[in-house]
């Protein structure tokens, strides 16, 4: 028996600052290549799907293969607009944060397709359990941008009454569950929500969202166990954007595995999708939603994408990521890819794109103007001190009334 000293293995990303970005190890199937199993198929007949990537859009902007879905040009255009809005919104809010109008901001640059495409599959009454990087769900569901900004500015019209960090939105009406700052907690809550729908004999489904890094949390495991045991009507989304602050995704998974392969230990159908391919995300989400709604239970989807920006406004990725990694990312930019497809289809042009961009920017600006007219974090007109004490319970108990009075309210 060998008795050489053991050594701790600590995984390292392919490149760090100073290195040349290199994604040549990253296996990417051709668009259209990956098969589409039947909705009713058992998880154990599709284990291969967890090691492939569903892709629809080719390099040239053509949409091909079994996952090509029934999206009309109008729907595709509106998807493009959603993503463009999201990007413009992010860029304005990043700037607003830099100007001190709020304390903090998180953008989703480069990942717009994931949330924007997934949202369009959902129906009224379904519920997303998002992380802070799925603001696209709100944008694509037509939630007023100004209300989002009111939240970001913690102004008097903030639906959260100034209580939450910027971007921690909540909207029951728009099927967007209150975001928690504690990573992963919503994953099992989504499963519970979906179980409640099944218990109630309803037809609503839930979607759970989690980052690559956060798949490590215990709540992820709880969600897998409960979803599989009770066959909950839920879509379990892992957004693998390659990074968790400064930590690369390899730190959260085994060497030869994928995040999707986690499904295999639970008999949950699992697949990977090109997260920068609007059409692929749409198709895969639709497939999973239909499985859920027709009683076939949960699906695990790993969205393969890339966090093109910093983690948040508190983060500077240049100290831990190689320069140019973002542009070297082989799955490209979701907006550019959908735009190319629309041009390929002959329903879009560079010119229309430029017009649309201007149009989108003016909408975002208008929303911002309106929000700022109410107030920003520094301009005053914030929610009241009284609001600290409200909503701790439905009815304020005597000790809180006493404390509210102590606070002078």
């Amino acid at each position: 028996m060998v008795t050489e000293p053991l050594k701790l293995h600590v995984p390292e990303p392919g490149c760090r600052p100073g290195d040349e970005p290199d994604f040549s190890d990253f296996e990417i199937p051709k668009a259209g290549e990956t098969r589409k199993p039947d909705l009713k198929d058992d998880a154990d007949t599709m284990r291969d799907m967890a090691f492939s990537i569903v892709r629809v859009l080719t390099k040239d902007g053509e949409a091909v293969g079994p996952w090509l879905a029934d999206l009309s040009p109008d729907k595709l255009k509106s998807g493009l607009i959603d993503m463009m809005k999201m990007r413009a919104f992010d860029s304005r809010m990043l700037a607003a944060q830099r100007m001190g109008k709020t304390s903090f901001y998180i953008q989703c640059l480069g990942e717009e397709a994931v949330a924007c495409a997934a949202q369009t599959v959902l129906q009224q009454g379904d519920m997303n359990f998002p992380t802070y990087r799925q603001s696209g769900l709100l944008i694509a569901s037509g939630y007023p941008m100004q209300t989002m900004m009111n939240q970001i500015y913690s102004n008097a019209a903030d639906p959260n009454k100034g209580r939450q960090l910027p971007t921690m939105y909540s909207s029951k009406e728009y099927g967007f569950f209150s975001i928690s700052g504690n990573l992963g907690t919503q994953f099992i809550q989504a499963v519970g929500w979906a179980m409640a729908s099944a218990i109630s004999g309803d037809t609503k489904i839930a979607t759970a969202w989690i980052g690559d890094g956060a798949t490590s949390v215990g709540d992820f495991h709880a969600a897998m166990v409960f979803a599989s045991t009770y066959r909950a009507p839920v879509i379990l989304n892992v957004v693998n954007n390659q990074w968790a602050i400064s930590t690369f995704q390899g730190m959260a998974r085994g060497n030869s595995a994928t995040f999707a392969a986690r499904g295999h230990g639970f008999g949950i159908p699992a697949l990977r999708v090109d997260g920068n391919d609007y059409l692929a995300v749409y198709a895969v989400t639709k497939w999973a939603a239909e499985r859920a709604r027709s009683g076939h239970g949960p699906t695990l989807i790993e969205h393969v994408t890339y966090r093109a920006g910093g983690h948040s406004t508190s983060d500077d990725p240049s100290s831990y990521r190689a320069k140019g990694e973002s542009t070297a990312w082989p799955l490209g930019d979701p907006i550019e890819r959908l735009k190319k497809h629309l041009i390929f289809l002959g329903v879009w042009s560079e010119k229309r794109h430029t017009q649309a961009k201007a149009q989108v920017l003016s909408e975002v600006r208008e929303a911002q103007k309106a929000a700022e007219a109410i107030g920003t974090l520094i301009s005053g007109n914030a929610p009241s001190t009284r609001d600290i004490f409200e909503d701790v319970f439905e009815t304020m108990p005597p000790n809180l009334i006493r404390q509210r009075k102590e606070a002078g309210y």
Partner: protein
Amino acid sequence: MRMTMIEAIQNAHDLAMMQDDKVVVFGEDVGFFGGVFRCTAGLQEKYGKSRCFDAPINELGIVGAAVGMAAYGIKPVVEIQFADYVYPAYDQIVSEAARLRHRSGGDFTCPLVIRMPTGGGIFGGQTHSQSPEALFTHVAGLKTVMPSNPIDAKGLLLAAIEDPDPVIFLEPKRLYNGPFDGHYDKPIVPWKKHDFGDVDTEYYTTPLGKAKLVEEGPDLTIIAYGTMVYVAQAAAKEAELNADIIDLRSLVPLDMETIIASVKKTGRCAIVHEATRTSGFGAELSAVIQENCFYHLETPIRRITGWDTPYPHAQEWDYFPSPERLISDFNKVMED
């Protein structure tokens, strides 16, 4: 009808489920088997598998799923098999259940009940004996309740189920079958032969936030909850003290009025609990009483509690606050 505390709790579940089909009950071994203490016996058979079911062994998952269900609009009542096993669920309780209403500006709410057998006295060792109430009372957004008899157990549980916010429901397992008073070498009167075992079979609620003055007397105020109510009664009797004995029933919200009125009257106060002393709920009681009754207090408030150690197995009765310890401390409260 005469019921044990277990039967009263089962009955409360039964009535709640009958009255409101949004009430669902789950936890480890609570479905087919009816719970290791039988508090959910017969519910699965009566209401079906989708309203009462077993759960995987994952307390985080049980509470986390319940948070999602509560947000959906149904009413989960979950069992943690022993309070000692609630810690894996602590994040879901503290960061999620307790804060959902507040952080969402009232958009989402979290009406759920988390039941758990609590406390020692059954030779359960350190993992079947703990009293973690103070770990909940510190958390804004939670209510924390502990009944001491079948009548209250039913009424408080039904009130907890009706409550629009999360309630931690601690069941002193040493009282499941009768009012144990710390004299472990003597038999207990079973609830079936005790007045407090005479439970109304109809639906009723006992409001959260109201303490009960179980005995009245001018000598001192004794504040207790759960099992310690009976130990305090026995000790006061043996010490021949005529005390106001307050059974808190609900720790948050706290019935300050009853407490303050009593301490102002007696000028002396002893607080009894089974949990470890440091940062136990007795500290909070002592602090608020001191804040509110300072000029009425004749002697220092004393805390008689479990030691600041894990709960031992063989030395259980040296850990459990015994009638002897209570007597000795009550006398000190009187003497000083």
